[in-house]
């Protein structure tokens, strides 16, 4: 789906109360800008596309409103107003200076284990806050993790989040297949919406940690050309556990990452808090 683009000049006219610094990468549903308010605070303004699925947006807002954690993006304002035929529909979030994790990761360049432990334990703290709000993010991937200049990760983009205490938006029993396949858990390929829970996010976290530790993803490889091949690897293959870069890791790291990448949810860690604790414990190993 094509990104929703609002030209910078048009955005300036629509939101004269903000000083526009630059346009950020838009998504299909939101045009994003780095702006400053009148007090000089750096913010992220997201203009919602007219065709945005209203109910899904409401879920995102609800998710963000219930979260207040340094490793999760903070919602500052949500406005949907119509005055004199002039509609304004936007979100203001905390602006997170820095880069996407996607821009930091380099194929074939593993991080040190101390770096992995420090970074991903903080990210796991954020995920635990998400879990405590009964939310599943469902789209954990490098593009949705901002990295502050001091190296702190911040989880962003709750556009696909699901609040477990509320009925899912998908009306059919299907509905697991939402998100980014490279970071899919087995239940996102083969399960139903009932199979999606916090541990689905932990599987994606496991992929990210595996990539950071070994320099390469556990399941995807360059010769794959179809989603079916990826599905087969994620749902059935154990090859990732035999790759030399993984085998060379110290045992506690192999145990943790192996558990995160278990096919069956019951065998993954119970929650991200557990993962954070273990990462801090084994960080020096």
């Amino acid at each position: 789906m094509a990104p929703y683009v609002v030209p910078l000049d048009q955005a300036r006219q629509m939101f004269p109360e903000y000083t526009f610094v630059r346009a950020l990468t838009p998504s299909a549903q939101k045009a994003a800008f780095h702006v400053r308010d009148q007090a000089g605070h750096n913010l992220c303004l997201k203009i919602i596309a007219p065709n945005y699925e209203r109910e899904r947006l409401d879920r995102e807002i609800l998710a963000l409103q219930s979260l207040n954690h340094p490793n999760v993006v903070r919602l500052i304002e949500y406005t949907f107003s119509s005055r004199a035929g002039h509609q304004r529909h936007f979100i203001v979030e905390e602006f997170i200076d820095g880069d996407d994790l996607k821009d930091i990761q380099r194929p074939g360049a593993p991080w040190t284990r101390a770096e992995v432990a420090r970074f991903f334990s903080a990210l796991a703290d954020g995920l635990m806050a998400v879990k405590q709000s009964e939310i599943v993010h469902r789209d954990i991937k490098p593009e949705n993790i901002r990295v502050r200049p001091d190296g702190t990760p911040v989880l962003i983009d709750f556009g696909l989040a699901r609040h477990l205490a509320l009925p899912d938006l998908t009306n059919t029993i299907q509905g697991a297949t939402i998100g980014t396949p490279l970071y899919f858990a087995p239940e996102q390929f083969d399960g139903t919406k009932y199979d999606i829970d916090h541990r689905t996010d932990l599987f994606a976290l496991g992929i990210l940690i595996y990539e950071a530790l070994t320099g390469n993803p556990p399941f995807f490889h360059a010769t794959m050309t179809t989603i079916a091949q990826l599905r087969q690897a994620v749902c059935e293959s154990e090859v990732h556990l035999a790759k030399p870069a993984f085998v060379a890791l110290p045992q506690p790291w192999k145990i943790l990452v192996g558990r995160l990448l278990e096919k069956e949810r019951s065998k993954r860690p119970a929650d991200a808090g557990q993962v954070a604790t273990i990462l801090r414990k084994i960080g020096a190993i």
Partner: protein
Amino acid sequence: MRRGAWHQCGDRSQLLVAEQLEQGAGVGVILSPRDLARPKALEYAARYRALGAETLLDHQFYVPDFTNPKLNTYAISALRAGISTLNRVSDADLVEFENQLRIDNQELGATAVLAPAVVYEAGRMDIMQLNSRLFGAAKRVADQLRVPTYATIVLGRSVTASDVTMASVLSNATALNSDGWYFAFEFEEERLPSSRDSVQRCCSAGLTLACTGKPVLHAYAGPLGLLSFGFGATGIGLGHNQKLWRFTRDHWQSPAGGQGGGGDAPPRFFSSALWGTIIYPDETVQLDAQLRAQVLTPSPFCTAALTGRAWPRWDSGKHLVNVLASTFAQMAAVQNPRANAQAAIDRLSGAVTIHARIEQAGLFLADSTNVYQDNWRLAMQDVLNGRSGDYDYLDLLR
């Protein structure tokens, strides 16, 4: 959840439990509304707490439409109904359910709320959803009372028949945002389970739950509890007779007011050396002195049996509970599940050896009391060997 033996109440056991607690046997008590009317439950809960025990109330929704006069003394029983009816319960009724659950747990001084749950069955999404809803209600109650919530996971036979089904059900059940697990496993109809595969699956399921890092109370374990610390359990439910040793839904389907079986059957002496029973005195007198000394493992409740006097059958139940509780207390002191699994294997190996000596002496014990020890040993060994990654993970969690 306190680590050690938990008394699984039922079948007129309330005084027995108090007596055991006075002896220092057991760390907690699970009250059974099926067997104890509410006024009595309040009275005994206070007594157990005064004796230093934690108390839990198991509302026993396993077979949710079962009821009896004692259950009816709890207001929550008005909401007992079949699964399909419960699945259609209105939000207003669910609020009433929560109210009653809160009042019962508060007044009984429960140290955690056990979430009522129906026995899990294969392919029954309606049961998953119902249990999730009941758990949500229990969680809200526990949050109000500022105590933990333990999800009840009772795996029915349709689930336990297959590893794949069991794994799938456990994945859904462990999605509940619980602080611990109250876990039971439905075996085939036997006094004690003898199938190596079934026992291995029970241990595997328990180990999966333990690997969540949350405490596991192995309910209705009885003598099988010898294996529970070996799969990472925190508490073991035990009782004085086989109705409390094993989970069977017949217990919640039979007519109310039954007095239990046994009739004039002679007492069974539970021997920790045999890890099983031997009939007193019919069989024990046939053992030579050395073997008898080895088999008649003592407790404060078997003095008569040790001295060859008449031994009331009721005392054999007390003896059984005491032996189990003290053995489990010793194992509870060891925090390492692998070490406890090995200790169980060693004890069962010893039991197999003594049983062989008894048979060599020409005595063939009744009740098929020697058929399960070797299979339990093999099942525990299977788990220890086959699930070593889980034990590694438990080590990492400690």
